[in-house]
């Protein structure tokens, strides 16, 4: 605790908010003066989505201490359900911003429900079961959306699995939204950078408030020592579920934001590789370190595109950068060096 009356935890939270707001302001200024390249402009919304993915996964991996290898599955649920909602409301006369908000809420809701269902059996167990089950979950979700046909007309939604029985049965003015392996096409691009920024801020506020609350302390107690936590009467499954479902819901809203930035989305996009990519953001940024996740996600989404000018070397450079960052982060000399600037930090405060 510092003497100023602000706890270290709030300090950390406000630093993170500050950095995100500053980054948003800078991007707005650069964009307004017309100095932004089309490439960067096109990447703003995906960056926001990946940042939300990273901080939400950090809640599961860093704060709760459970390994999830199927985070892209929640993103997929959010993306497909969010776009479905946005498409169904297309002719409703609602403004684009409102439809985007509804899409993100719907995405979050469905992903949260799915997260809850996955969590019921798995979070009761000890060990690495969550990693195994989420890995399978990601593949199952991919399979489901690859075989799902969903249409919408005046009578409501029509759904069929495996074969397309929907198109034939649609009434006048109806349209097929999810077309199996074709995914969703002809999406109206309504995602904006401002919406992405707001989503990041909401997620950060939720996460920091959760972590710094009684529930958050219980969650971290479970991470640090499950047996000790149980012995003092903390209901382990409940708190695990709380963190896991929150994390899944956030991934769902990120998915909706992401999908509404592209004209087409297919289930294969949200595969194991995407889950691992997000996990890399989290590990590189530091477990439990939200600001680190944000920076790592931003840097690693931009990096491959900036490296385009190196042509085929870019794969090599990308890998070298990853290795270097890991080495540097764990180098004692550099840790000491940066540690000097963090006054008031007690050794071992961060594990």
């Amino acid at each position, binding site marked *: 605790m510092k003497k100023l009356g602000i706890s270290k935890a709030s300090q950390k939270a406000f630093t993170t908010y500050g950095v995100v707001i500053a980054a948003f302001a800078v991007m707005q200024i650069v964009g307004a003066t017309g100095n932004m390249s089309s490439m960067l402009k096109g990447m703003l919304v995906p960056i926001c989505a990946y940042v939300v993915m990273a901080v939400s996964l950090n809640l599961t991996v860093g704060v709760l201490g459970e390994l999830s290898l199927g985070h892209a599955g929640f993103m997929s649920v959010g993306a497909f359900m969010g776009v479905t909602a946005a498409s169904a409301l297309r002719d409703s006369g609602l403004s684009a911003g409102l439809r985007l908000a509804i899409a993100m809420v719907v995405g979050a809701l469905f992903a949260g429900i799915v997260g809850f269902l996955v969590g019921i059996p798995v979070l009761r167990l000890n060990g690495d079961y969550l990693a195994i089950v989420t890995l399978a979950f990601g593949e199952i979700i991919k399979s489901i959306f690859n075989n799902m046909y969903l249409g919408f007309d005046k009578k409501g939604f029509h759904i069929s699995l495996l074969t397309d029985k929907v198109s034939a049965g649609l009434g006048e003015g109806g349209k097929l939204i999810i077309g199996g392996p*074709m995914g969703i096409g002809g999406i109206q691009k309504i995602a904006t950078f401002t919406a992405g920024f707001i989503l990041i801020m909401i997620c950060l506020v939720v996460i920091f408030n959760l972590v710094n609350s009684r529930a958050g302390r219980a969650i971290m107690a479970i991470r640090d020592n499950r047996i000790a936590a149980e012995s003092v009467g903390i209901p382990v499954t409940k708190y695990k579920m709380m963190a896991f479902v929150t994390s899944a819901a956030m991934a769902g809203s990120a998915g909706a934001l992401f999908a509404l930035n592209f004209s087409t989305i297919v289930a294969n996009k949200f595969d194991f590789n995407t889950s691992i990519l997000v996990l890399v953001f989290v590990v590189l940024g530091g477990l439990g370190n939200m600001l680190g996740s944000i920076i790592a996600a931003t840097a690693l989404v931009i990096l491959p595109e900036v490296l385009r000018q190196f042509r085929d*070397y870019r794969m090599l450079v990308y890998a070298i950068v990853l290795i270097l960052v890991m080495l540097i982060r764990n180098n004692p000399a550099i840790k000491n060096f940066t540690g000097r600037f963090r006054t008031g930090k007690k050794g071992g405060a961060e594990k």
Partner: protein
Amino acid sequence: MKKILALMLVAMLALTLVACGEKTPAETTAPADDGAGEETAQNLTFKLGGTGPLTGGAAIYGLAVKNAAEIAVEEINAMDGVHFELQYQDDAHDAEKAVNAYNALKDWGMQISMGSVTSTPCVATAAETYADRIFAITPSGSSTAVLEGNDNQFQMCFTDPNQGSASAQYIHDKGLASKVAVIWKNDDVYSKGIYDTFMAAAPGLGLEIVSDTTFQDGNDTNFSVQIADAQSKGAELVFLPMYYTPASLIFAQAKAVGYEPKWFGVDGMYGILTLEGFDTSLAEGVILLTPFNADSEDARTQAFVAKYQEKFGEIPNQFAADAYDCVYAYKQALEDSGCTADMSREEICAKMIEQFTTMTFDGLTGDGMTWDATGAVTKSPKGMVIQNGAYVGLD
């Protein structure tokens, strides 16, 4: 530890410098400067861009397109008239990366586009070219979704549905079989598109579909179930709307169980004979529909195949031929419409739409090609059969 770290940093810096210094010569094929006609050449040099999978699982298609486009640009730049500056960007067969790649091309100043090589990325970039009013013609993005909701995205290849109904028609016309099995990939846009129209057309033509089995990405190495199903139900012909990698495994596994039906493929089958480590005798008798035949007697085709082989050491596939045609179609359209490079993208786009919908183009993949207002091409597929390890025209 420190020494290693320092060494790595130095190595990386060096690499960065080297890479920066080169300024991507391989991906940009600039026209040769000839002092006299510099002014006119400048005015007629268009920046042509495209995205495709240059790395990853689908790289074989992206590289074929890029290589062929380079050859075409090289030839055209040696002639009078319009010249091109070509740049290809990697999209790794991913819609998100394709949009990034497209934006990189836009920053470079692309005036006309060759869209994307594969279907899903092409749908994503088509929305972008539509919003930015940049004209695009894709050599190989064959899904109908590519053409939907825009007026300035054209195709050089058939749409997938066309291939499905054309295949059913062909099987019926030639009386190849009455009992047909289909094995298709149900998480793939290409396979699904062909399958849908094949299934829609088959009953009307008296084809009985006795077996209908699927496979997916990551589940595409063992086909014993699908083959057994087709065999037990007595299918005389197996229709394979897929790319040739899974098809090669199906041939091998069917032979292992002694099942020898007629095999029928579509344009994705083209290239199976050059697949590394593939025993070409397995593909003996396979029939496929494709618009391009590298063994054709046509002089232009032979010249193109010879040049491609000399430069890249392999026989060009249909994707390469389509890309080559795209560049030449651009040359014809730009020259006929009198476009100059100082015109805005919108003006070029409007002229190109007008030109492409009215002109007739003769290329490697067909004579007398025309385009309708949706951007779909009309040309006739050629039936081919594999005999003694070579593609032989059926008609």
